[in-house]
């Protein structure tokens, strides 16, 4: 009641003394004059800076619970919010941003799609939501030779290692970073003995490998491994008996699961042979973002996202927002829409940007990965944030997550 009254009053004609568009125009004009020394760097045409979003649609298995579908616009909505936020800021320095969107169907040629986009002039900033091979196809294309690519979908560690590229930045954390975050918490809690259950898909194998590597890095141990293939059976009918067999093994503190597509992991929780927590792709999960995240004004970002997308913000959405925000923030810092200057700043050592994670974020000079805190989540709460207390690094604790400079085989970045 009260709320309705207030809104009416607040938006009643004549009350809103400053009609939005008009005063923005006036302000831009004023700032344009004030920012005269930088004027040569402003986009000469006055056109908004274009950011290209390109996605490969992936066919996924049906979710175990159809209340939790994987949204069709995962990633894209984040990028759209990034554009809105960048425009809200950019207008104060006379900058505008626009998103162009291309979605490539399964089986279609992403490189050809990119070549088609590039006919109108190669895009300078491209947010890529696609598997690793697509990312490489784009970065290696002739049309993309001056383009900065921002990876928001591929968690493959190899893209930050031997398969890195000079103009390829990674906003989404790698599997290594996720595994490191999880294992840090396990070590902190002294739950260091893992029984590892992996699914049959290539991503599951890579996730499991990342867990083994993190275990070695931080002094945890994989005491036994088993495989589980949910294909050909509906796990919802047989979980009680099947998982008891799969998770029988030597003494362990947690059951770690590698099931990236969500084919069985959710049903493993509370169905283990011994009363042990499930961690990994389900149960207690490491992630860049989640709906329980609220500290450091995350609530504000989440609310804005929900208003735009009508659903919760997922990790890939956050990465999409973050990728566009990084380009927008670089432009605003420079007070310039000049793509070459923005590229130089983003690829250089001085660039820092906020991301609602309580710290300044930056790209690692040796492989282009965004340094960032990660969350350890179950659907109801944030259990902890990583880097976990006590894991130290001479540069920044954030570099305890993922490939550190001496470990990365990346040469292309020159850092």
């Amino acid at each position, binding site marked *: 009641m009260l709320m309705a009254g207030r809104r009416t*009053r607040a938006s009643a004609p004549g009350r*809103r003394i400053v009609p939005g568009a008009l*005063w923005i125009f006036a302000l831009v004009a004023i700032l344009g004059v004030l920012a005269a020394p930088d004027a040569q760097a402003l986009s000469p045409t006055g056109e908004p800076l274009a950011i290209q979003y390109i996605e490969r649609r992936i066919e996924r298995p049906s979710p175990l619970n159809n209340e939790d579908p994987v949204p069709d616009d995962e990633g894209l909505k984040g990028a759209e919010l990034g554009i809105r936020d960048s425009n809200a800021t950019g207008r104060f320095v006379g900058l505008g941003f626009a998103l162009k969107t291309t979605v490539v169907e399964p089986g279609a040629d992403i490189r050809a799609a990119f070549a088609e986009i590039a006919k109108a002039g190669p895009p300078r900033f491209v947010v890529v939501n696609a598997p690793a091979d697509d990312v490489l196809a784009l970065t290696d294309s002739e049309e993309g030779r001056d383009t900065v690519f921002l990876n928001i979908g591929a968690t493959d560690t190899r893209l930050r290692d031997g398969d890195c590229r000079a103009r390829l930045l990674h906003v989404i954390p790698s599997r290594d970073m996720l595994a490191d975050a999880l294992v840090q918490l396990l070590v902190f809690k002294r739950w260091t003995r893992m029984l590892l259950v992996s699914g049959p898909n290539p991503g599951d194998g890579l996730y499991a490998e990342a867990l083994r590597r993190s275990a070695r890095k931080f002094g945890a141990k994989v005491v036994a491994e088993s495989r589980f293939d949910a294909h050909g059976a509906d796990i919802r009918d047989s979980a009680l008996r099947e998982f008891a067999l799969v998770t029988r093994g030597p003494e362990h503190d947690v059951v770690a699961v590698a099931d990236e597509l969500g084919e069985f992991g959710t049903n493993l929780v509370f169905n283990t042979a011994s009363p042990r927590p499930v961690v990994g792709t389900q149960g207690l999960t490491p992630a860049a973002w989640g709906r329980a995240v609220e500290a450091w004004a995350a609530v504000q970002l989440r609310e804005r996202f929900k208003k735009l997308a009508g659903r919760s913000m997922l990790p890939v959405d956050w990465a999409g927002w973050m990728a566009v925000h990084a380009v927008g923030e670089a432009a605003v810092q420079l007070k310039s829409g000049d793509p070459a200057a923005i590229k130089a700043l983003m690829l250089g050592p001085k660039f820092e940007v906020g991301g609602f994670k*309580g710290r300044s974020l930056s790209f690692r000079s040796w492989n282009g990965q965004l340094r960032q805190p990660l969350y350890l989540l179950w659907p109801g709460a944030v259990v902890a944030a990583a880097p976990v207390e006590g894991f130290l690094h001479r540069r920044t604790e954030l570099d305890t997550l993922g490939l550190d400079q001496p470990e990365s085989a990346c040469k292309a970045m020159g850092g």
Partner: protein
Amino acid sequence: MIRRTVAGLLAVGILAPPALAHEIYVTNERDNSVSVIDTTTYEVTRTFPVGRRPRGIVFSKDGSRLFVCASDSDAVQVLDPATGKLLHNLPSGEDPEQFSLAPDGRTLFIANENNATTTVVDADSRKVLAQIDVGIEPEGMAVSPDGTIAVTTSETTNMVHWIDAKTLQAVDATQVEQRPRHAEFSKDGTRLWVSSEIGGTVAVIDVATRKVIETIRFEVKGVSADRIQPVGISLTEDGRYAFVALGPSDRIAVIDAKTYKVVNYILVGRRVWHTVLTPEQDRLLTTNGVSGDVTVIDVGALKAIKSIKVGRFPWGAAVRPAAGEPAAGDKKSAGAAE
């Protein structure tokens, strides 16, 4: 004119006996309550419920009305401080976080964190005078001592927006470092201090030119740089010190307000948000969110002398001006600027 009056009254304040009792009101963000601390004993004398997620807090000049930003209730509540009773709500716009009362005692500038506006409300007629578009997540609010300029800081846009308090139009913007959270005018109105939480700095801006003239950085031995997150700022009336709350580093930085050099760090409770000075300027109180307490600092000795348990997540603090004690009038509040 106003400045001279305030200065005159200030002198009276300083000469008043130090035992003069004040009440300091603290908003408990996660308890939806306000704790009242008595400054003769430095103990909590009472606690009363308010709206959801209370943050910014400020008094009317005569101390008869208490304004609280109840962020999750989307309201600025007006309460009777004596009883804690809700008098009425003010139309506040969505998600009010901080606000600032102009020297006229009735114009309230409210930062609406969720919808990138500053709402201007006449606290007497309870009417919205304007809604002004600013950057994303406006948070810090301050009105210059002469009442001509209001500023708001936008946390994601990373700017200070300058609002002409007469025309209620945004006229300029100054870029600062990441996540500006709090703004505070110097008593003479020539400088604006702005804290950048993620940037880890405090910018001192020349009000006449709206340019940053000094960026103050912090360094605490044994505390990693990214734990140093400046939020609340208090400036002493005599222009000697600036106190800056450094968030999760659990420290208050003491800055020489003339040379802009950090002269001391004082360890307080965990995740310190805001600070408030007593009218005599002899004590500084800090709200410590995570530890749920308030630290009392002896300003003369620059030492923490007491810790007072309050509710969960204390955030803002304000001194209640007593009738006939006008030095505290429009000046003392944290999480509210002035």
